[in-house]
């Protein structure tokens, strides 16, 4: 156990991310080579003209040795050249940035929704520990983690769009269109976070510090929301930051359900068209966001929780 300064610890954590990033890029590079047989066959069909096949092979750099392809791929990524779509020749990185805004909006609204639901739920459950409200909150949490989002989405559409006619079925132009996808994407997160909030709050309230505060006559509300909350919400915040990236994984399915034109829908469209460079680009971008979110979670914990600095 040695006491490094917090800057050193953050720097170490930043450096540790580099090999992870290289690993991610490497796996994404090899994705193309997972296509069984010859990817060119898969793209053009086995009856294609030899000249077309050769052109496609060159476009994907498949005519070069694997190491050369790999170095070429890395160089391209660093220079902002993420390849071209083989369907419409559109630049992959440009298409990704076009679509990222929609996913970002959806993710932000879902995350906000999840926190606004989870923290009060966790609080009520902990405060009324063992009572009906606690059970109800935990049942919600169980339902939330168990319900698949590709079913929750259609059920919400059936109820709110088809039966009640309150909200649009899909797309993102109409007002209120973000509500159903955000609920669909945020529910599982809200369930996980509320569970964590409840457990962490109960743990914090059992501490001597909180008992002492109570003995000193500090008001119950202040103990819960100041003394205990500062400890209890720390793991919630960490988990939340960790889930920032996971939400992007869930967005692939949610966007497909609601035709929400973001990165997730782009991924699925690219898969259906066998637009392999586009698939690679989507997967890479989402994974990069995921790695950065994990990094952010660790750094935040280091800054906010002095105890963690000794563990590292």
């Amino acid at each position, binding site marked *: 156990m040695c006491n490094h300064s917090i800057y050193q610890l953050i720097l170490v954590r930043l450096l540790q991310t580099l*090999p*992870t990033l290289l*690993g*991610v890029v*490497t*796996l*994404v590079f090899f*994705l*193309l080579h*997972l*296509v*069984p047989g010859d990817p060119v066959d*898969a793209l053009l069909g086995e009856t294609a003209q030899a000249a077309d096949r050769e052109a496609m092979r060159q476009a994907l750099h498949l005519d070069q040795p694997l190491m050369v392809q790999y170095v070429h791929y890395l160089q391209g990524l660093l220079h902002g050249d993420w390849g071209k779509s083989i369907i419409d020749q559109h630049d992959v990185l440009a298409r990704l940035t076009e679509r990222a805004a929609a996913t970002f909006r959806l993710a932000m609204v879902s995350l906000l929704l999840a926190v606004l639901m989870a923290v009060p739920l966790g609080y009520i459950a902990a405060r009324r520990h063992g009572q009906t409200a606690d059970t109800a909150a935990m049942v919600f949490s*169980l*339902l939330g*983690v*168990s*319900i*698949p989002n*590709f*079913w929750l989405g*259609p*059920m919400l*559409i*059936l109820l709110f769009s*088809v039966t009640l006619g309150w909200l649009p079925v899909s797309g993102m132009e109409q007002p209120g269109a973000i509500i159903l996808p955000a609920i669909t994407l945020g529910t599982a997160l809200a369930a996980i976070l509320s569970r964590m909030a409840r457990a962490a709050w109960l743990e914090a309230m059992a501490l001597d510090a909180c008992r002492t505060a109570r003995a000193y006559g500090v008001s119950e509300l202040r103990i819960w929301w100041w003394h205990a909350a500062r400890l209890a919400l720390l793991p919630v915040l960490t988990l939340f930051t960790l889930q920032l*990236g*996971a939400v*992007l*994984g*869930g967005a*692939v*399915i949610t966007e*497909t*359900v609601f035709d929400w034109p973001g990165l997730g829908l782009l*991924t*699925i469209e690219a*898969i*259906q068209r066998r637009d*392999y460079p586009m*698939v690679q680009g989507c*997967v890479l971008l*989402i*994974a990069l966001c*995921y*790695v950065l979110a*994990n990094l952010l979670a660790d750094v935040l914990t280091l800054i906010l929780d002095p105890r963690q600095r000794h563990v590292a």
Partner: protein
Amino acid sequence: MWRNSAVRLAAGCLSLPLLICLLALLAGRNGHVVNLDSVLATPSASHWLGCDALGRDVLDRLAEGVRLSLAISLSVVALGAALGIGIGMLAGWYGGWIDALLMRLADIVLSFPGILLAIALAAMLGPGVENLLLALVAVGWVGFARLSRVQVMSLRHIAWIEALRAVGLGFPAIAMRHLLPNIAAPLLVEASFGVAAVMIGEAGLSFLGIGVQAPDASLGTMIREGTRLMLTSPLLVVWPGLLLFMLVMAINLLGDALRDHLDVRY
């Protein structure tokens, strides 16, 4: 464990899907019989839950879907556990470069949201149940590996394990007969939650069209087919999702109960 109300609830949730499977098996029915006279038929005495867009009996297809979902998720978890525990024990026991190499591999898998990696792998490998299994196992082994590695590392220097080494027992024998029984509890809990996660993953991939392919029925493909007809026959999407939901919830409840029962903390 039976006194636990959660376990009874779980049993209740499991019984309906299992009953549907059992009845279909006993009646010798399958969900592949196309009958164009009964396209989108409403529930009746011969078709209790009606028929889908090809006139296939929905109840029979549900039975097949539950069977397939259970079969896939159980095999994925079994394969993933075998692979992951093997890798984790090797890494934990030998340490050094073997450990470093294997754990970097695990780190890379963990650098992707699980469902995204499974989607990417399944999409690249192409459609088919084998590739679906492969993609899900490739994501699923990591949890088991990390868990068993940590456990083995803490057991490795305990005196009686050292004694086994001193009398000349090799790693395979120590691993199978002595390490495994001692690390089984947390792995069992991991496996039970794993079944629920894989079940959702499999159905999700099938829903996206990159898992189980037509004409086979999985709960995911049924939800996919159902969403297209949601405006005319909403029940087609309700049933498969409801069964999936019940199965996943039951398994999560059992996982919770198992964790409490075995007193596992992680």
